[in-house]
């Protein structure tokens, strides 16, 4: 791991260094658990955890993030994305303690086709965990501004505007944001004024000790603007969350694990279950990354998140599908 720890984008060096946090980029396939111990961020590989048995034993809430299933994709980078998605579901079903619910951070489908959504829904039926919360990826809203997506995936929530919402579970406040619609030429992902005003009002009445989990498709931090990997007005959103002691931001879109800690905010991106994408700036474009067949599953995966009341930080654990 040590070799891979380095700062990707030192957007705001204030605060973090003072508090003694370090920033780290955890690459896909490593499986890292992040906890805050005595104010210092500590990472452990899954192998270390297995050895020491130090995974949080009793948790009040555990949920799972899946992302970028891209059902309908059939190019060289992965000719069978339903098979790899099925493996991810098998992994979830095999967990000794099933997660309370799943969060899907977008790009359910490749081309927003009804039959692709159908296939996804059909596959998901085999999952033991039935509650799933969604946010759309740009691939889910291609031709209809997200109408079909909203009809299918927002039934269990009170969604506003183009599909954002919040809910509470075990004292944790969850916020699902949409940053893939009404994008402007030359720009990045965008939340828009209406959604930001809603967000400000949504968190207004909450105590600063309420743990916050924000999930959206495109990263809410500037990962690599040259490839559009960022959200133009995310700073404003994070401004409304500044007073909270624990904020966990879960994103997809870039098909690889990246993590950054800024003050009380932990940013995390998940692997895809379909195909990897190149590390920022290492290819001519962010298109699907072709890897040898035997390597593919090590670059796909899911993210488990655990919360124990009294512990301010949520433990975020990535595991791959190999």
């Amino acid at each position, binding site marked *: 791991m040590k070799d891979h720890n380095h700062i990707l984008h030192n957007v705001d060096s204030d605060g973090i260094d003072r508090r003694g946090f370090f920033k780290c980029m955890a690459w896909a396939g490593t499986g890292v658990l992040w906890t805050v111990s005595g104010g210092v961020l500590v990472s452990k590989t899954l192998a270390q955890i297995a050895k020491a048995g130090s995974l949080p034993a009793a948790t009040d809430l555990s949920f799972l993030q899946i992302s970028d299933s891209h059902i309908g994709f059939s190019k*060289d980078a992965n000719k069978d994305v339903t098979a790899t998605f099925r493996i991810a579901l098998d992994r979830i079903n095999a967990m000794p303690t099933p997660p309370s619910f799943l969060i899907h951070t977008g790009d359910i489908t490749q081309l927003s086709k009804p039959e692709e959504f159908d296939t996804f829904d059909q596959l998901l039926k085999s999952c033991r965990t039935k509650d799933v919360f969604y946010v759309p990826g740009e691939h889910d809203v291609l031709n209809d501004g997200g109408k079909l997506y909203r009809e299918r995936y927002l039934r269990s929530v009170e969604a506003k505007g183009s599909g954002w919402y919040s809910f509470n579970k075990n004292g944790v406040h969850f916020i699902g944001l949409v940053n893939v619609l009404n994008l402007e030429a030359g720009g990045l992902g965008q939340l828009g004024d209406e959604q930001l005003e809603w967000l400000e009002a949504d968190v207004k009445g909450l105590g600063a000790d309420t743990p916050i989990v924000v999930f959206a498709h495109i990263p809410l931090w500037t990962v690599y*603007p040259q490839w559009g990997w960022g959200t133009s007005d995310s700073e404003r959103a994070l401004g409304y969350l500044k007073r909270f002691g624990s904020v966990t931001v879960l994103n997809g879109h870039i098909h690889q694990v990246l993590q950054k800690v800024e003050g009380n905010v932990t940013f995390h991106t998940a692997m895809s279950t379909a195909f990897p994408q190149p590390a920022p700036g290492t290819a001519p474009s962010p298109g699907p990354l072709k890897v040898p067949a035997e390597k593919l599953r090590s670059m796909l995966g899911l993210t488990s998140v655990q919360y124990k009341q009294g512990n301010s930080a949520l433990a975020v654990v990535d595991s791959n599908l190999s």
Partner: protein
Amino acid sequence: MITFIRKNKKAVLLTILVVLNFCLAAWGNDVARGAAAGERQNKIEIKDFMFNPPTITVKSGETITWINRDEEPHTVVSVGKKFQKSSALDTDQEFTITAGEPGTYTYFCSVHPKMTGTIVVEK
């Protein structure tokens, strides 16, 4: 040395093509305006998340065709909704419009808004 000659050859060929094109256009104007206009190929290739060429100059009434060579879907959307937008183009799918009023039109991919292009329509 060889490359130099090759480049030269290319340049000669290009000149011939350009001249030919002018002749055709002139012929088109005199004899059959519509047909000749339809024959000119204004192609924009979408590759590596870029529109290539990023700027294209066409004559009013000519067609412009985009073809997506990426494994990622892309769209063609006019800034300010000046012309009809494409649906999501999958790999090797095409989208064609006919250039209308003279002017400068900018467009982008609504899926990857960093991707932008310009169409200059001349009379």
